């Protein structure tokens, strides 16, 4: 071993200190690596508990400490994200929903390498995850899981009244009339909430319509398909539903079927899962059936969830290690998915027939055979302008206008005009 003189010790020490100060990063040796992860209160609470357990094992296996913070899924998280981005400080990793990677694109680390590894293992990310997470040729967030909308109905009531399980949106109108007479109306929100868009989108797509073309610039809402959609909604509102749907929040349709009122709703499986967990009397009667078809096929809204890493993070590599640990290890990913009780389904093609779907006979419809899943605004890319169309609820407001007295033509013309102004702005 070479001896070190006092002079070389001082020189090398000073240089090292200068390096640390310049890079603002402590040397790897002796440095405690710690990352923070902001995620949402999952609809399946057991999933949050499992995430905590996995995080503890991660720390034990890798020596990287991880701090997980949970935040309410609707509302506060956007304020939190905005403040973290504006102040360039906060968590290293963030959970993201649907088009968030588009909204925060310039602030998110290119994470294509991690997605590439996962796709190699599990197959391609599902199309809706690609639409939302792959922004301008780059993966800005890693697909984590997804939850799709599904037809949810009171099987017991259907059997009692000998009603045929609908296969098309038109069939739903036929049984819906009977359900309303029975005091168990159809519950599709037509209000300023996201569930309203989650149903209006699939109905519009099934009739062959769209809001904006895939070029993201041409408004296509004024079409015969939209006329059919609006007319269908008008009939449904008049004959199968009650005016309460105009005031509903995201939770209202769940509560309506859980409390024994609604006979049919369009929702993720959370309505059933919560009824089952809370041992509600309606739980046994709730089931799901195949997604409804229109002249242009079966479409559903899908809400992929992602994990993104902020560019301002000083722990990008440890953050990537966490994603690899949670999603890249098959046994860990399976364990995480299983804890979500079919609310959190894997976001990769080869994992679609996941064992979680066999944990309850009522999850069969979630296989989604022959169903195309999309995010809001499809087929337009999730640009900030298309997201403004979504976030200002133009689609449900067009329908709300139509079902409350505005002519179909005027309601569509109003939506077209508003969408044009947004895209031109």
């Amino acid at each position, binding site marked *: 071993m070479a001896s070190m003189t006092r002079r070389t010790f001082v020189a090398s020490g000073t240089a090292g200190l200068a390096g640390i100060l310049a890079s603002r990063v402590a040397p790897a040796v002796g440095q405690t690596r710690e990352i923070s992860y902001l995620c949402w209160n999952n609809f399946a609470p057991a999933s949050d508990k499992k995430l905590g357990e996995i995080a503890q094992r991660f720390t034990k296996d890798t020596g990287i400490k991880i701090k997980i913070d949970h935040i309410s899924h609707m509302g506060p998280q*956007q*304020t939190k*994200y*905005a403040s973290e*981005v*504006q102040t360039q400080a906060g968590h290293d990793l963030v959970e993201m929903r649907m088009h968030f990677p588009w*909204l*925060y694109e*310039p*602030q998110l680390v290119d994470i294509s390498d991690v997605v590439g590894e996962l796709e190699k293992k599990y197959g391609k990310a599902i199309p809706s995850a690609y639409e939302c997470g792959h922004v301008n040729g780059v993966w800005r967030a890693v697909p984590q899981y997804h939850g799709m909308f599904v037809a949810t109905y009171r099987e017991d009531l259907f059997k009692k009244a000998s009603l045929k399980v609908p296969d098309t949106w038109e069939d739903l109108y036929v049984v819906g009339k009977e359900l309303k007479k029975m005091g168990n109306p159809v519950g599709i929100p037509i*209000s*300023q*909430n996201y569930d309203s868009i989650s149903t209006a989108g699939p109905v519009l797509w099934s009739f062959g319509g769209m809001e904006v073309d895939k070029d993201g610039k041409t408004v296509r809402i004024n079409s015969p398909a939209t006329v059919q959609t609006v007319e269908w909604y008008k009939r449904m509102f008049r004959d199968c539903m*009650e*005016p*309460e*749907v*105009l*005031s*509903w*929040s995201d939770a*209202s349709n769940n*509560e*309506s079927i859980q*409390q024994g*009122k609604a006979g049919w709703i369009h929702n993720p499986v959370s309505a059933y899962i919560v009824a089952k967990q809370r041992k509600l009397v309606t739980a046994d009667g709730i089931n799901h059936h195949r997604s409804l078809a229109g002249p242009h096929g079966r479409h559903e809204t899908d809400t992929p969830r992602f994990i993104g890493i902020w560019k301002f993070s000083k722990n990008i590599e440890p953050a990537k290690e966490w994603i690899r640990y949670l999603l890249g290890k098959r046994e860990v990913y399976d364990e995480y998915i299983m804890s979500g009780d079919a609310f959190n389904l894997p976001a990769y093609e080869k994992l679609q027939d996941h064992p979680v779907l066999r944990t309850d006979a009522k999850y069969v419809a979630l296989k989604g055979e022959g169903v195309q899943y999309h995010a809001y605004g499809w087929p337009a890319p999730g640009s*900030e302008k298309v*997201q*403004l169309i979504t*976030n*200002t*609820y133009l689609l449900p*407001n067009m329908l*709300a*206008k139509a079902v*409350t007295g505005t002519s179909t033509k005027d309601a569509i013309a*109003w939506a077209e*005009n*508003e969408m044009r*102004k947004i895209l031109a*702005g």
Partner: protein
Amino acid sequence: MAIGTLPVTATARGSLRTRVRELLDREAILGPLFITPALILILLLVAYPFCMALYFALSNAFIGRPSTFIGIRNFVRLWDSDAFRQTFQNSFVFTASAVAIKVVLGISLALLLNQQLWFKRVIRGAVLLPWVIPTALSTLGWWWMFNSLYSVVNWTGISLGLMSPPGPNWLGQRYYAMTAVVLVNVWRGLPFFAITILAGLVSIPQELYEAAEADGAGALARFWYVTLPMLKGVLAIVVLFSTIFTFSDFNIVYILTHGGPINATHLFATLARQVGIDSGRIGEGAAISLYLFPLLALIVFAQLRYVRNQAN
């Protein structure tokens, strides 16, 4: 040597203390000294965010992206949006009706609280409760009461035979929804009116009422010619504050209706959040928030001037 220097140091210290005391005795120094901490807080927590908002409103700022100055383009373009025009109208309807109702009910409640009541202090304290409870929490209670599935309001109305089932669609029909948000705002803001007006009432000299009574003035005349003129100053201040707070209300609408149905209850603050935070367009969001700033500033100026003239 130390013994020799001690008196000198003590004298120096003494003269310094005297000088400081002299300085502090001067109003020109003590005044600004007292104001400085508050001024720093105002600069940091009010002036800085306000200037930032002003800059955002005049720029094309988008969350996490570089922005450029675009002048008043946001303010002009907003007028094209149907949602904004609706919001503009809603804000005036909401504020005018809520403040008017609060004035009438506030005066009535204050007159009532000014009477000799049993448990006067307890009642006066209880009246303040709606104002003290966090708005988000109390509004959730109201949301529950107006909720289509659980509405206790409709249940009571139907049980008493006052409503025909299923009862009003409180949050789903535009006029009912506006009524609901105004009602909750009145419920929340009424204590502020009542207690402030009560303070004004208490300060009216009793001799004025006695003189009016001696001149044969009835209860209505006493109210009209004595109480109301004497309350003008207090009312002007209360109305000023309430107008500003009501215009900028957020919680009530955000929780009860989310701005719906079809934007019928959106206020500037809720629309600003929808555009600025949910959709990332901070510039437009800030412009929505500040749209009424010039008008509100004028109202403040006019009302404060009126109050000052009254005082003189």
